[in-house]
Structure formats: structure tokens, C-alpha cells
């Protein structure tokens, strides 16, 4: 682990089926915008957001990804070396569309893969998106909530369109990562890299500390 820095950077990746609203969630959170005309994502994109939790300045570096599985070989979810592809041990924001139960199955699939390949204490959060269409929901949110509990994740009902629940999701992620970082500093649960798994360490940023927290 790196030495204590004034600004912590945490990396997270958005995962989920096509058209569940990954890009819209991030754009709402980072730029506070929403477009009905959001194009299909065909290339992973990178955005950052700065915030302060309990006086600690944090930078979230967020990777938005394309929904289709075959794009993932291009990064940033997997790391490729001579022996094959490895899932990068990273915080995951799993997104599904509450009006489309298939997209929740995809979340379960991701969770399985993350649990198998990444470390046990990986931080996962689920966003049940498109809550603005709650009347047309075909999927029981309670079932999703209890599923989230079983995997130690929290579930948030979000609407990128109305901007509801978005801050809570990212705040929860940041708070949990901060907690994890603190406890590992105290040596309570040192996160040991497992064999064959790439651990992306949260490096302190080289940039000067930001002026503003939002």
C-alpha cells in the first residue's frame, strides 16, 4: 500500500447490459446532465468526480463500459497477459433496468464472475435504474434487494432521468472504499493480492488537490 496522501483516488467500473443506463448514470452524476438521445456506447470512457467524505478529499475515477460482452476484452475490466485474461480487481457498480428482468440476470452473472475472479472483499453496489418508470416495473425490487444483501452489496433505486438516488450510490461506494482503505492501513485486513489476479492499487493523484469538492 502506498503512503498516506492528501487525496485518495478510487477506481470503479460500471457494468451491466446494454441500454440499462450506465452512461446516463455517470453523466448525471459527473456533469448533472441527462439526454434522451444518448448514443450506444461503443468504447469504454473515463470520467472523474471529486468529493469529500469526513474531511477526506476523494477522487472517484469512473470507467463507463459498453454493454456487450465482447467489448470487454478491449478493457478496462480485464487484463491480458501471456497466460490469458484476468478480471481486474476493481470496485463494480452493477446497473440494471428495473423494467427489464433480463438485465438483472446479467447483474447476477457479473456478481458470480467477480466473486470467482476478484478478491473476496471486492466492493460491489447495484443500481436499479429507471425508477422513473416504476409503474411499468416487471421485476420485484424486494427480491433484488435481498439478493444484494446476500452478496454484501447495497442496492439503490436510481433514475438518471430525474437525477434521484444517483448521489447516494456513489457516496456509498466512496464511503465503503474509504472505510476499507482505513482498515487496511490499520493492518486489520491487509488486502493480499491473490495469485494470478491483478490488483489495481489506488494510487494517490499527482495533480494538485482540487479547489472544490463537487
Amino acid at each position: 500500500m502506498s503512503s498516506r496522501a492528501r487525496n485518495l483516488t478510487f477506481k470503479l467500473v460500471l457494468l451491466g447490459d446494454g441500454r440499462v443506463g450506465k452512461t446516463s448514470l455517470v453523466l448525471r452524476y459527473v456533469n448533472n446532465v441527462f439526454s434522451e438521445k444518448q448514443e450506444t456506447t461503443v468504447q469504454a470512457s473515463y470520467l472523474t468526480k471529486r468529493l469529500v467524505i469526513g474531511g477526506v478529499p476523494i477522487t472517484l475515477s469512473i470507467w463507463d463500459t459498453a454493454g456487450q460482452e465482447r467489448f470487454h476484452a478491449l478493457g478496462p475490466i480485464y487484463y491480458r497477459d501471456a497466460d490469458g485474461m484476468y478480471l481486474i480487481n476493481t470496485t463494480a457498480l452493477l446497473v440494471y433496468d428495473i423494467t427489464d428482468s433480463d438485465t438483472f440476470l446479467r447483474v447476477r452473472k457479473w456478481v458470480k464472475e467477480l466473486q470467482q475472479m476478484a478478491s473476496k472483499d471486492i466492493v460491489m453496489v447495484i443500481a436499479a435504474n429507471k425508477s422513473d418508470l416504476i409503474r411499468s416495473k416487471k421485476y420485484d425490487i424486494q427480491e433484488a434487494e435481498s439478493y444484494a444483501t446476500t452478496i454484501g452489496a447495497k442496492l439503490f433505486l436510481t433514475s438518471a432521468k430525474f437525477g434521484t438516488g444517483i448521489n447516494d450510490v456513489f457516496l456509498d461506494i466512496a464511503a465503503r472504499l474509504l472505510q476499507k482503505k482505513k482498515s487496511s492501513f490499520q493492518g486489520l485486513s491487509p488486502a493480499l493480492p491473490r495469485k494470478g489476479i491483478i490488483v489495481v492499487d489506488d494510487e494517490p493523484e499527482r495533480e494538485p488537490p482540487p479547489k472544490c469538492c463537487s
Partner: protein
Amino acid sequence: MKSTTAEVDPGSYLLSRTVDGFGFAKQEQSNSTETLSKNRPVDDHPNDREQKTIRKWRKMIGVGGSDWKHYVRRKPHVVKRRIRKGIPDCLRGLVWQLISGSRDLLLMNPGVYEQLVIYETSASELEIIRDISRTFPSHVFYQQRHGLGQRSLYNVLKAYSVYDRDVGYVQGMGFLAGLLLLYMSEEDAFWLLVALLKGAIHAPMEGLYQQAGLPLVQEYLSQFEQLVKEYLPMLGEHFIQEMVNPSMYASQWFITVFSYSFPFPLALRIWDVFLYEGVKVVFQVGLALLRFCHDDLIKLPFEKLLHALKNFPAEAMNPDKLLPLAFSIKVSKRLEEFKREYEKRKERPLPHSLPLLSSSGIPIHNLAGLE
């Protein structure tokens, strides 16, 4: 599946006539449309020079394309030069079909498209539907839910996903098909897609979309990285320092051949050349973009660098500035070498053409040795 875009009012854009010369809703950044205005398609009132150009092109093509092959055989350099200057917009659809070899495929396969659209079902239907309204969402042709544009787009993509079930539907294909459909009929667009992906004239590009991680994209990206190191060594070093690799900015260039998020006037000019000369122009344009912004890019840290690589200045988006720069970067020889190295590594030759393309059907008129 029930679509979730019920809130979109399809009529508003059509009524307000706030579209540019290509049918895209006008953006707020009025300054960029200004710089691009001289690259508008030759529409209602072409000037004398444009008239002259069109006449030249018509002569070159002949009635319904009858003289084309003959002309290309006789004067390939003239054709290449004229295409690099831009195909007149009113002839673009026809010329694209001629230079891509798709016209021959269409004639060789009567009724096939109809069969694919009407009688076959595809495992990708749901995935296609999910993306339909997210393909060129600001273009008038594709705005209306279940309108002609969206239905055509769906049909072409579905037909392709049936035609090549191994590849199926892949995100990004919609931008190719969507671009083509603005210039030709469904059936013509379908065969042009086939010509590109299965390799009617140039090496097949289906690997851009194949399972197992889009293998051709990975190959192109590693070649592009190599070219950046060789042609722009300082920037290449900077990318390494900042841990920026081409998959973070250039994969969409290859996957959609610049039809995704690039200004339409530029995308069309790139496509003119791409269909005639092949994928090398994607490398050339990519390198030209980096060279154009070289002095700025070299100073930027990771985050700003990635942002800049997706938001090029309007000046760089001017085809008459960017393309001459692109053509001045010679990459054919290096790409040939990369290909040989790659094939040696794989110890098997790349599949080169589809059985469907009999050797008699398609003239190979513009492969190597034109430069």
C-alpha cells in the same frame, strides 16, 4: 420488448427544421457548423465548380455505373485522386456501391436479402432493438419511433445477424448501417455491409466484430500503437508515461470507421476513401488527428489527455485540412509488414475471402501498388 423511450416527441424536430445539411439536429456549438458549412453536400444549388465536378463524375461512372469498371482499370490514379477530393454527395450512394463491390454481390444474390428479413429469425433481435433508437439519435431519419429510418436500420442489422450467425449483431454495426442507409436502400446497404465485413475488395473486416474479444480491433489497435511510437515518438512516449493505450480512444475509430461521434462531413469524406483504399485510411486519419493536436496532447495528464482525444478542435474536424495531412502519412508498407508478422505469429493465413465471392465476380482493381 417494450421500448422505454415513450417520452420522446418525434415530431418536434421535424417541425422545427433545426437540422443541418445532412439531416442532423443542429447542435448548440454554432461555430463548428460555420467552419463546416463549405463542406456541405451539394444540395439544391450547386455552384459552377461543383456542377463541373458532378459532370466529370457522371462521365466516369456512365449510366447506372456501366462505365465504372472500365474507367477504373484505365485510370486508377485519376479515380483515386478524385475520390480523395470527395465524391459528390448526389452520387455518393451509387459510387459507394461500385467501389465496395457490393453492387456485384447484390446482382449475384437476388432475393437473398428479402429471405433474410422476412423469413428468418435472429437470436440478436432484442439486442438490436435496444440499440435502434440509440443510433444517430439526433438525425431526422432515425428520430421517429418505428419510423422508416428505425425500421430500415432494424431490418439491415437483423438480416446481417442472420446472414452471419457467428458474428450476429454487435454494437457499433448500427452506425455503419445507419450511415449507409442515408445514401442507399436497405438491400443495397445490407450488401455493402456484407462486402466490407466479408471482404469483397479489401481484406474482410468481420474480425472487428467477432466473439472472443473483437480480435481484429485488438490487432489494429496494437498496430496503431506501434505506428504512433514510430511516427510520433514523443507522443508515443507520453502515452506510455500516462498509461494511455489506443483502446481508450481509438477503438471506436476502427469499430465504426469514424461514423460514431465524428462530424458527418468528415465521416463521409473518410468513408469515400475507406471504401476505395481500405482500412489504411483509418490509421492515417488517426495519426493525422494525433499529429494535428500533437503539441497540446503532449502536455496533458491522463484525464485531460483522454478528454482531448475524444474532443478534437473544430479545425481538426475540417476534412480539407485533416485529410491532406492524413494522406501525407505513408502507412501501407508498415501495415503490410505488421500483417506479415502477425500471420507468422499466428502461423496460419488470415481467411481472405468468402466462398460466396467467386473469383470471376469481383474484379480486384485497387489492392496494392497504387501508392
